[in-house]
């Protein structure tokens, strides 16, 4: 089973996203900021990361840039999932290594649609 790491400082968002991702057939790990996510990746590498932008300690951009430098980091699919929904922010996330971008608020259909586009769901 594929594994997803959900990185968001909001417990509610992590819970909602976890439910959606689990229903799509993934195992899920959670982290509340970029630093904790990097630590989690030393224990277990995910296939997919869903990451928020604005978080304390380490934000999503710094996390994406750091995780891409890890061994195997380039093979992981990264989706930003954030309220930052203007064009400059989207471009900045893509430059930092995002594969896709979800603008909050989102629902299960949007997540499923993005994973189909990325070839992670049939």
């Amino acid at each position: 089973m594929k594994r997803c790491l959900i990185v968001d400082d909001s417990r509610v968002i992590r819970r909602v996203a976890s439910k959606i991702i689990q229903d799509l057939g993934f195992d899920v790990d959670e982290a509340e900021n970029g630093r904790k996510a990097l630590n989690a990746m030393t224990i277990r590498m995910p296939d997919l990361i869903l990451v928020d932008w604005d978080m304390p300690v380490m934000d999503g951009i710094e996390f994406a840039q750091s995780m891409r430098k890890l061994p195997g980091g380039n093979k992981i699919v990264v989706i930003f999932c954030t309220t930052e929904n203007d064009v400059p922010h989207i471009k900045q996330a893509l430059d930092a290594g995002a594969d896709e971008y979800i603008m909050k608020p989102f629902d299960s259909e949007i997540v499923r649609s993005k994973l189909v586009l990325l070839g992670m769901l049939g």
Partner: protein
Amino acid sequence: MSPEDFETAAQFLKERSGLVLTRDKTYLLENRLMPVVRELQLRSVSDLIAVVRGGAPELQTAMVDAMMAKDTGFFGDWKPFVHLRTVVLPNIRVSRGMKARFRILSAGVSTGQEAHSIAMTIRDVSSSFPGWQIEVVGIDISASAIAAASEGVYSQFDVQRGLPIRTLLQYFAKQDDNWVISDNVRSMVKFQPWNLLSNLYPLGRFDAIFCRNVLTYFDLKTKLEVLQKLARLLVDDGVLYLGINETISGVTSNFRAVDPAVGIYASHRADRPASMSLAVKVDL
């Protein structure tokens, strides 16, 4: 809703749009018509049906629009668009080189996502068609859906369904909370309100037809009639795209299966050399 009201509504919708409703779809009828009931400040769906029974062309149209509204996304399933880009468009470039023109129909286009996806697919390879006259025609029974499609303005929710983020940045501009399709895509597409049960000849002929997840609304007889009409619109070596798992095997001999698993059919009149084969397996 009484059985009489249901029968009245079902018969009216069948005559007007071809939509077939069986009694077990009463919930669907009520769910789809409740927004119309609220907008008109009526008390119930039965009241709406009573008004429609008495005439009221505008309300009849609103009722058909509400029932035929298609839950639609942009590329959605990618495979037809991969086939269009990698098989059909290269074939067209070779076979239509002298005329330098081609047309694609999106039938049941709803609010325009499919037609715009076709246009974006063509735009991606537009350098292969310098100076060509290219037209994408989107038709739908709902005039209100066609009006929305023509505006080309989509919500944040709409553009996140089936549209890759890089394609969004390439072909849309953000305007307040919405996203607006770019002029170079919009200019390729013409939207028209059109009922598939009516005469389709005035639309002209097409090199490819998308009619995905539309036939599912119809009974077998209506489905056959529509397929025969579409077959006459399609050029001899044209391609028909239906929805995934939407089979027409045994329904008509007008088309032959190319890749039925992803809903790709060819005109049965086609007699093309092997080098023009459309039977290319589509893998993502």
